[in-house]
């Protein structure tokens, strides 16, 4: 076959290749750096550019050296580009789409004239530890340094106008998950499926096949058979362009499924938008790691020049994308892959000037450069200089052992093979096969994979499969000159040797000091070279030097994919449609969306104080308690006593945790002999339920109590104000609401607005005569609307949380977790009267007994002397210049009193009524405030409430 240029779609495009992935019937145009080019469907960004003679794709991170193709794969460090608004796209992996706008990143002002490449001239200042040494002192220049360092920052641009992408998430439960869709992975998947397993087969590239895809005819024949068998096998789900990014406890495996441009408009996501990325969270019975091997670069002077590439890159370009990688080539070969690359190049008409055989001592000393930095020739070990525009190296492999490391294995270095191998410390549900596990012919490797796949399917011992052999391979890491080790971080072997000389002579220290392996390629290409160079510098073996630890994620993963579907539950009351229709300002309270107010909270207060208002308090926690031992439970949970509560009565109670800190408060009522309902704060509902269950299940499993949460089984409405009795009476005919028959702190059951099974409590947080009614939730909206309709002549209005908070502050009621915090014990909150220390036991009892003798701040009512000043909540109360002696926990302007009112904590010696304390405002003003006799600022005797 001869190399011919295909007109119209690039100057370096070869004629059709037997294994190519191009659709020659589908030419497409795209732009690079503002210029338009033609390529085919199936091209990657980089293959499409190379076919057009473009060979420089980026500037290196520190020195801004021109960079071209190295591996022609996802890992390729020099091929990171910007696509439209998406930065950091792996250009050697991402397929071109029609009209794609691709641009280089990390270049200024342009790829060809890069101002920062002057850094090359001052390279000695940018050596190992450069940042640490240069930008530390003096500290006052740090802002200036930041401006300098920003210029070095790699990465692309993201527009603030970027629309939300559609990211997805799903769970999977394969019996066997195979990481790697090469011949071993496919063989393992087939064997596992034959054994009856559900298999998830994950391949990072767009197609299954691994190295067979760019192999010879015989290899492609095997590939075709395998692909057909996988497609026909029931029970194998294949994810291509997907990557296993992490393995966690119990084979919890993260798979990132990348965008499928082929499916644009194909029905994924809203309005046919493509799924950008999908995170598959798989719980796998067994994990088979068949990750293959990554070809390792060779370290020598000029090894990062465009034109120097790995043998696998040359073969992929020729065979997958029909791109001629150069005109005149030198091949440094230490293995069959190098020889095959040379043969491929000759076949397509590249002049192979020399195959330098490393197995017989041949070496490359340096790559020579043209003025533009690209390759112009090569100097060999024997001093020969050859002109060439392509230098291919094949010096060995790196085992991508990330998943093994994550599973707890410590891979070991095998000097004979010059690579790391599995260390044999894998858990029983993780298996390894293919090139990462050992060597052999294709048949031998696939036989091993089949045995492993079958074993994994039945959960057998990995050792039951015969081990693969280990072939010798020359150990070639660094040649006679210094060169680039970490292409993405611009770290050279010279830097590593210098760092070792400075004392950073352990691999973990060296990594952090030089940033080697810390760039986007994350060590997949360069780790072993770094280790080898360090071991040479320190005189230790590679095994002694060890490697850095590989942690998840294996591949970059976007925050969008991690976020996935947004699953944030929200909760609504049955009256939500009314609130929405009547302009309620939503208040987000945990998961609940509640009406904060309907426009004018002060007016809502006036309605309640003068007429009657209704508020939706559905989120109030409600627990249905049944059984003969309920009083025992109440006595244990609350600090006060519960044994003698009569049927039809309710009582206020406070709960403390075992450390004596106030946990929750509320009223509990006895509806019948063996039926009680406990109410909790809205935010404490789940906590109190769990708290009760924990006592019942762990300490008192013998007690007969059933707790059923009924918070949302009832719509809860508080009817408050002087006209509340009148209003409720119009809708409730079967309960005598008179003060004598239904007194304060009583509970009754009855029918409201035609709805049976309601109960009503005569309690109140606002300080007015009020009834808290609980109606079967499906009828909540009906009762709410009926109340408003029936009470129109009474001036009834809805009020929101803000009005309620104002009124409860006027009444001095504290709110748990607003006025109390994680340190507030019951006595500090002024609950001395409630705590019954003569009870045998209750949660937190010992701490409360001891608290009496301790020094603690007291909750008090406070009023600034200047009633127009409302100190913000959390303002400190101070003595002298800086001593903090208290804080404001709640503050509002009281529309009823026409002045500011507060609750707050003060030191015990400041708690006496009439004491004047100093409140420090955020604007540094200090204002005097008076400690009040009561917590309540309004109707402290509760005359209105009991009316």
């Amino acid at each position, binding site marked *: 076959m001869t190399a011919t240029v295909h007109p119209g779609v690039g100057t370096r495009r070869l004629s059709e290749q037997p294994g190519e992935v191009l659709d020659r019937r589908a030419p497409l145009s795209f732009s690079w750096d503002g210029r338009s080019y033609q390529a085919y469907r199936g091209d990657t960004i980089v293959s499409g550019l190379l076919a057009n003679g473009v060979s420089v794709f980026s500037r290196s991170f520190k020195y801004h050296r021109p960079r071209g193709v190295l591996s022609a794969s996802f890992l390729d460090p020099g091929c990171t580009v910007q696509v439209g608004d998406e930065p950091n796209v792996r250009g050697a992996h991402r397929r071109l789409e029609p009209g794609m706008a691709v641009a280089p990143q990390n270049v200024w002002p342009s790829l060809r004239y890069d101002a920062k490449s002057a850094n090359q001239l001052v390279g000695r200042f940018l050596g190992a530890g450069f940042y640490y040494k240069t930008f530390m002192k003096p500290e006052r220049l740090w802002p200036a340094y930041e401006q300098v360092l920003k210029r070095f920052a790699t990465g692309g641009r993201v527009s603030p106008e970027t629309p939300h992408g559609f990211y*997805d*998430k*799903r*769970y*999977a*439960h394969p019996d066997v998950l195979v990481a790697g869709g090469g011949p071993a992975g496919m063989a393992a998947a087939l064997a596992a499926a034959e054994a009856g397993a*559900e298999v998830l087969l994950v391949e990072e590239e767009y197609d299954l096949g691994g190295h067979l895809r760019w192999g010879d005819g015989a290899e492609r024949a095997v590939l075709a058979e395998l692909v057909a068998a996988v497609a026909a096998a029931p029970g194998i789900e294949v994810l291509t362009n997907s990557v296993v990014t992490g393995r966690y406890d119990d084979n919890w495996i993260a798979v990132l499924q990348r965008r499928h441009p082929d499916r644009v408009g194909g*029905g*994924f*996501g*809203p309005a046919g938008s493509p799924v950008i990325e999908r995170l598959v*969270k798989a*719980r796998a019975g067994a994990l088979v790691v068949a990750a293959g091997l990554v070809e390792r670069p060779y370290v020598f002077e000029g090894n990062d020049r465009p034109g120097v590439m790995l043998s696998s890159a040359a073969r992929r370009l020729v065979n997958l994308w029909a791109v001629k990688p150069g005109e005149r080539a030198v091949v440094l070969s230490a293995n069959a892959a190098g020889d095959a690359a040379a043969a491929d190049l000759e076949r397509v008409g590249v002049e192979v000037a020399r195959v330098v055989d490393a197995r017989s001592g041949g070496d490359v000393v340096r790559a020579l450069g043209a003025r533009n930095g690209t390759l112009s020739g090569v100097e060999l070990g024997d001093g020969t200089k050859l002109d060439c525009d392509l230098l291919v190296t094949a010096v060995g492999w790196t085992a991508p052992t990330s998943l093994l490391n994550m599973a707890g294995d410590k891979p070991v270095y095998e000097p004979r093979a010059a690579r790391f191998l599995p260390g044999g410390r894998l858990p029983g549900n993780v298996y390894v096969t293919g090139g990462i596990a050992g060597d052999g012919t294709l048949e031998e490797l696939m036989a091993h994979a089949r045995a492993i796949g079958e074993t994994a399917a039945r959960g057998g011992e990995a050792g039951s499969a015969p081990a693969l052999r280990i072939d010798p391979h020359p150990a070639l890491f660094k040649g006679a000159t210094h060169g680039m080790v970490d292409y993405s971080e611009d770290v050279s072997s010279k830097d590593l040797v210098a760092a070792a000389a400075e004392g950073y002579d352990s691999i973990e220290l060296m990594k952090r000091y030089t940033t080697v392996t810390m760039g986007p390629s994350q060590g997949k290409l360069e780790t072993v070279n770094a280790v080898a160079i360090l071991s040479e510098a320190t005189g230790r073996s590679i095994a002694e030097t060890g490697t850095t630890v590989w942690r998840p994620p294996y591949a970059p993963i976007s925050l969008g994919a991690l976020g996935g*579907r947004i*699953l*944030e*539950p*929200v*909760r*609504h*009351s*049955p009256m939500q*449609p009314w609130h929405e229709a009547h302009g309620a300002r939503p208040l987000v309270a945990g*998961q*609940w969306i509640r009406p904060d107010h309907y426009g004018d909270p002060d007016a809502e207060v006036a309605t309640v104080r003068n007429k009657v208002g209704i508020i939706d308090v*559905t*989120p109030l926690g409600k627990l*249905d308690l*049944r*059984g003969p031992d309920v009083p025992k439970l109440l006595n244990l949970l609350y600090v006060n006593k519960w044994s003698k509560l009569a049927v039809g009565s309710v009582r206020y109670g406070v709960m403390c945790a075992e450390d004596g800190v106030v946990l929750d408060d509320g009223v509990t009522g006895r509806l019948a002999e063996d039926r009680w309902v406990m109410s909790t704060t809205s935010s404490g509902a789940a906590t109190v339920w769990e708290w009760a269950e924990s006592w019942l299940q762990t300490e008192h499993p013998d007690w*007969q109590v*059933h707790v*059923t*949460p*009924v*918070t*949302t*089984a*009832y719509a809860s409405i508080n009817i408050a104000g002087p006209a509340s009795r009148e209003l409720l009476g119009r809708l409730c005919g079967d309960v005598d609401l008179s003060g004598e028959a239904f007194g304060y702190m009583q509970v009754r059951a009855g029918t409201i*607005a*035609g*709805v049976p099974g309601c109960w009503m409590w005569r309690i109140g947080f606002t300080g007015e005569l009020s009834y808290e009614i609980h109606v*079967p*939730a*499906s*009828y*909540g*909206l*009906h*009762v709410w*609307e*009926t109340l408003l*309709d029936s009470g129109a002549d009474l001036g009834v209005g809805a009020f929101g949380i803000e009005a309620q908070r104002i009124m409860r502050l006027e009444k001095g009621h504290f709110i748990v977790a607003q006025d109390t915090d994680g340190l507030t014990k019951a006595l500090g909150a002024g609950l001395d009267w409630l705590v019954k220390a003569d009870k045998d036991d209750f949660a937190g009892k010992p701490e409360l007994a001891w608290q009496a003798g301790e020094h603690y701040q007291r909750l008090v009512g406070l009023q600034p002397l200047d009633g127009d000043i409302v100190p913000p909540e959390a303002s400190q109360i101070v003595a002298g210049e800086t001593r903090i002696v208290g804080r404001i926990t709640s503050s509002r302007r009281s529309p009823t009193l026409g002045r500011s009112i507060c609750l707050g904590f003060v030191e015990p010696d400041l708690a006496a009524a009439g004491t004047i304390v100093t409140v420090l405002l955020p604007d540094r003003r200090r204002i005097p405030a008076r400690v009040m006799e009561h917590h309540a600022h309004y109707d402290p005797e509760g005359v209105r409430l009991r009316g």
Partner: protein
Amino acid sequence: MADLAVPVARSPIRPVGPAAVIDGWEHATGAAARGGLRLCDLSHLAKVTVRAPADGATAAALVATHGKAVRDAGARRLVIGSGPGEWLVLAPQGEGPALLADIEARVAGTGEFVSVVELTHGRALMRLSGTDAVTGVLAKLCAVNLSDKATPDGTALRTSVAAVVTDVVRDDVDSERSYLLHCERSSGQYLFDALLDAGGDHGIEPYGASHKDW
């Protein structure tokens, strides 16, 4: 404002499309074709929870063990073993008080400590049905293995669905794959919307329940 003379019960899930009041409950009345992926609100069904010893006479009377759902009363009721010593019983709309009384009568003679609580108004209930894709939709929101092997027809389990604690019952109808999802009432609209969103790829359709759905 609606006519307030007669109480109307409403689901926590607002009807999509046309709606009508049927026997005191507001219902969506839209239709969806069998075979497609679809979702309907069943919150109007009567619901009663029972707590009793896990292995006593009450348990024997209720038949369903934890993790299983069993049809009862000529298939008019579904008894769900929703937890250890905990059952959820579903019955047609309006039968809550009768169901409560019936179960109370059944357990009265056991001498066991039993609680029977009606939760018709306290929970949301929906049915997700359709092709095999229905499992894929649920698998976007639920981490439990839903394969036929692990979760066959008649399985009941409680887990997190879209971050809401949910009773999931595999309850196939006329050999069509179907799931009942039961959660605390105030999260019902959220869960319904989350399922519609997850099923968007597959063209999920909301519709009003017919007698077939119960």
